């Protein structure tokens, strides 16, 4: 019994780490959605771009400063964040602003196109070969009552919690956050009330790009190999955002972690004891998603929005 408890606990801890990655990507989806009501399907690709930028920055720092140290990784992360700020602003400039008054559907299609274009451009620049990213923590891990967790996973969980907390505070307690919510509700009314709508849009794309870059930097060493397919993980994080409640910032982490745990436990203990679970592993997440949406159509932490017409 004790052994079973340890095994399930281990799977839950691993699931939380995996779910935190989903949460980070889902957070990017939600940030843009909260301010613009647009679902950015290029969020996974933004993460992939961030990971590549970080890889090449570390490589260039290493060639000029010698073997990578913790400082090299910190510099790489900072460089990636600076790049993300510029990149987010640029994406707002080329997607959001020209299409601001177009139907949301058109903007969503544009984000899908941007995702494809980004994969192609990164493939052209970086070459077709997959890269081998290094973790700043190597293979370091800690052991608590038989449960093992890598330091990298601890950082991923910490980053997800910290970013969710920061953005939750920002959206609910700061003037800019409230301005973003107002813009989402009614951009014309918000503009008439003095909200600088264009700046709000720029800011939210920049935030989404930063979150994507941080998740890319953390995910790349965990995935062992860096290639342009990394962007497809965005599609796995999307149900996490829906499950948690699309538009709810804490919902990102709730949805991400639930999906991460379901995936790990069903592949692990459940499959070990019940052979039939193996057969439905790839659909189990979707079954849970449908079940939750049937009970709570807005997701676990989502709230129903009523708009005056």
């Amino acid at each position, binding site marked *: 019994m004790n052994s079973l408890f340890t095994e399930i606990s281990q799977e839950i801890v691993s699931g939380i780490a995996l779910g935190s990655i989903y949460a980070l990507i889902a957070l990017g989806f939600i940030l843009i959605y909260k301010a613009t009501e647009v679902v950015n399907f290029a969020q996974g690709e933004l993460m992939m771009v961030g990971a590549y930028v970080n890889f090449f920055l570390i490589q260039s720092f290493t060639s000029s400063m010698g073997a990578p140290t913790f400082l090299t990784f910190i510099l790489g992360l900072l460089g990636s964040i600076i790049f993300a700020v510029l990149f987010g602003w640029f994406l707002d400039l080329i997607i959001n602003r020209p299409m601001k008054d177009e139907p949301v559907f058109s903007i969503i299609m544009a984000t899908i196109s941007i995702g494809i274009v980004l994969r192609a451009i990164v493939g052209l620049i970086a070459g*077709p070969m997959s890269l081998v990213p290094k973790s700043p923590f190597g293979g370091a891990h800690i052991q608590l009552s038989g449960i093992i967790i890598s330091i990298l996973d601890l950082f991923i969980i910490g980053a997800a919690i910290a970013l969710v907390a920061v953005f939750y505070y920002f959206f609910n307690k700061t003037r800019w956050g409230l301005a973003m919510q107002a813009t989402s509700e009614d951009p014309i009314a918000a503009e008439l009330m003095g909200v600088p709508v264009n700046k709000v849009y720029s800011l939210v794309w920049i935030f989404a790009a930063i979150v994507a870059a941080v998740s890319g930097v953390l995910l790349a060493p965990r995935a062992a*190999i860096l290639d342009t397919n990394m962007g497809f993980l965005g599609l796995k994080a999307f149900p996490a955002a829906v499950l948690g409640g699309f538009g709810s910032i804490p919902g990102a982490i709730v949805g991400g972690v639930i999906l991460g745990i379901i995936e790990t436990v069903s*592949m692990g203990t459940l499959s070990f004891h019940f052979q039939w679970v193996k057969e439905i592993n790839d659909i189990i997440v979707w079954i849970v998603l449908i079940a939750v949406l049937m009970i709570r159509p807005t997701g676990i932490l989502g709230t129903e929005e009523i708009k005056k017409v």
Partner: protein
Amino acid sequence: MKKFISFNLTASIFFVLGCSGPSGSPGISDNEILIGNVQDLSGPMKELGKLLPSGSNLYLDYVNNNGGVHGRNVRMLVEDAQYNPQKTVAVVKKLIEKEQIFCLYNVIGTSPVEAIRPLLEESGVPLIAPATQSGTMSDMSRPAARYIFHTDTGYDIQAGILTEYVIKLDPNAVIGVIYQDDDYGDNVLKGIEAIEYELNISVQKEAFQRGATEFSGQVMNLMKGGCTHVIIAGIVKEPIIIMKTAEAMGFSPQFLGISPTMDHRVALAAGSAGEGFIAANFAYLWDSDNEIPNLYRELCEKANVPVAMRGMYHYYGFTTAIILVEGLNRAGKNPTRKKLIRGMETFNNWNMAGTQPITYSRNDHAGAESVILVQVKDGVQQTISTWLE
């Protein structure tokens, strides 16, 4: 009207003659043999799409610079199908009907090749060395099997060889397999199930989805099952993460891998967790001291092939091109597709490609049924066996 019909008839005759070479076969002219290759240049396997044709062209250029095949240069057209069966059908149609290729070579992926079987059957175009190690390629009961010449040992056979190798080393071994839940994994499982029956053993089976980055559940199950040996049917990142996860959990079975895991980056990225990892390989190591690997490295140097591109996949393109050229040679001075098929069927334990010995016959197009084992020692891959059947 009569004039119009007459003109059209004449034009059609000229068109047919223009498309067919002196031997009467499409794709053959006085100085050229045109072959078609379908790769993934912009999809999920684009890394291989870059490496395989580059390795093939390295050898084809060498052949062309040395007089070609019976005086004809071999020219390879590469089409992009993004590893997509439907797109593969479309580009193969284009290669056969518009480009008038002589034969197909190295079409990548199990599902894409399965999708073009009806086209091969209809057109009679041979496919040499499909770039997949699925055992279904050499299943002679399937449509168009007589046109397909497989050069790789099937995943099912590899899984059987690895299991048998383990049982010979340790009759009490508890074996587990962790496999990708798709065509590739299915073929591995087929081999595992056959060897379970043959040796009267039971192998623990754990699946993962393509693209997975989290394996702790499966690794824990293998640990719970008391596995002493674990066969990994993944590609590159899966063995790395699986072995690292196992190391962190204090679980240290002997890991073995099906040939796609035989990538030098596994040893590079897995570090201490990957030490001792054994992988099945279809050929001599590209950097080993053998005739064909030596020629490969010499040509890489001459052609300034970037160091990052040299390795098992680039070498795969090179070695399969050797088999293709040998087949074209055996098709004679006036080759036809039928002569190519007959020529291929004369390969008998032919081992001049730097791969496992190749044998074909009218009823057997498997080509190879053996692998060589490679182990990571001090971070470097070393050959540890002869060809195992």
